[in-house]
């Protein structure tokens, strides 16, 4: 993809966000207009290549499934091509995390059944898998994003059972996030980049999370109903 196309994508998204915020039109209207705007502006980018998570609790579960797919793919690569100088305990930690993320991915796929979105194609070209700092920095970004994503989307879940499952996973993601952070900088497990002055972890909206996650995805994911 050329940079200028990315730029126009960004503008289109920005325009849509502004529109949402200030015009107060119904979500359905905005979604239709958003797609129309994308068609017009994003020449060369096929609209049907983007995967939408859907609506309601299924949408939230697919959102989680998308993020777990991304994390699983990342750690599969990390373990397949370990960075130089990796220690045995780091291998143990990262192998465990890989197994957790693969299981989260497979769990969501099984739980969603026919409602599951397709398998996503990732793009990790920005990561140097032979370099410890590059790998752990990307891991930190993915884990921190996972935590803010679950924290930020929890209130949208309507079914108590699904909320509990999301809760069961988010604390494991937070355990990962803290470990990765500590591997990068000892003692940074709850540093101010992720935890505010009230001792609350940051939370993020679906749109903000996907904007970041899409940077690691060839198959782009959208959330038009949220």
């Amino acid at each position: 993809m050329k940079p200028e196309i990315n730029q126009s994508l960004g503008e289109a998204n920005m325009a849509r966000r502004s529109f949402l915020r200030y015009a107060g039109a119904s979500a359905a209207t905005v979604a239709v207009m958003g797609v129309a705007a994308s068609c017009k502006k994003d020449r060369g980018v096929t609209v049907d290549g983007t995967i939408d998570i859907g609506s309601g609790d299924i949408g939230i579960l697919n959102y989680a499934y998308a993020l777990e797919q991304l994390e699983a793919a990342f750690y599969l690569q990390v373990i397949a091509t370990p960075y130089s100088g990796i220690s045995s305990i780091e291998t143990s930690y990262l192998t465990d995390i890989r197994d957790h993320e693969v299981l989260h991915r497979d769990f969501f796929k099984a739980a969603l059944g026919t409602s599951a979105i397709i398998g996503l194609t990732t793009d990790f070209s920005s990561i140097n898998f032979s370099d410890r700092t590059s790998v752990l920095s990307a891991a930190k970004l993915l884990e921190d994003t996972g935590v803010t994503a679950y924290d930020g989307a929890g209130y949208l879940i309507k079914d108590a059972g699904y909320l509990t499952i999301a809760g069961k996973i988010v604390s494991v993601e937070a355990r990962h996030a803290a470990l990765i952070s500590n591997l990068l900088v000892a003692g940074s497990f709850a540093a101010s980049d992720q935890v505010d002055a009230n001792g609350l972890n940051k939370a993020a909206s679906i749109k903000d999370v996907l904007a970041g996650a899409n940077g690691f995805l060839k198959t782009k994911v959208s959330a038009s109903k949220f």
Partner: protein
Amino acid sequence: MNLFEIVDEIEKVDPEIYDRLNPRRAAIKNITSFGSKVAFAAMPFALGTMFKKAYGQTSTAGVIDVLNFALTLEYLEAGFYDKGMKTAGLVPAAGQAYVGKITQDESVHVTFLQGVIKSLGGTPVTAPTVDFTGGNNKGNGPFPTVFSDYKIFLAVAQVFEDTGVRAYKGQAPALLGNQVVLTAALSIHAVEARHASAVRKLRYDLGYDLNTRPWIRSTTTLGNDTGVAVANGNYAGEENVTQGGVNLMTALGASASVATASFDEPLTKDQVLALLVGSFIVS
């Protein structure tokens, strides 16, 4: 009660409070115009209606109960770390960055929860009387050396953190759909999990427990992965390998260790209180 304080407090966890309350945010921000339309005596009622409209069905009393339960746990943790940090010679220099940060977080959790409870018109519970040996005020519980032996101090810390994670998780359904309070509770929950991860890593790094990992690796028969048998109750249920009707081992081929570590399990309020009251919290 001051409307600005309440809205400011909520705005910390919900930046869109104004839009939620009223799309014409200027009308809400302008206390004069609001006040002129609502008699002063009717203010609490008007506020209640406003929050109900903005945040859905959960009753304020139920939310305050959850918050006071959380506050009790935070008092316990904050008191524990505060005493640990103030005990000369307990936390070595290398541990200060870890234990100091956790102490600070637990302390601001107390302040934050007290503030939110007051904002919602509730009364924060007072701090419980505690016995960190687990001896119900006799000082002779299972951990008599908790403030003289760093190894024991960190083991108790780990159990407190893991239990805190489970306790917050158990309260989530009671806050279903409540954007402000649920999001805040989930956010504290995540920080407790960060602490648990850090304490576990610290215990590994110091060679206190080379089997420990930042996550809870149970077997199919024993949730507790700490090797401290007296804490079995704190980990009871972590051995669960079925999530949402999917058996992670038989259906997805995960090992017991991976299946249990990938999902942290909740505890109910009654379970948590049974674990703490009469031992760490004096009854």
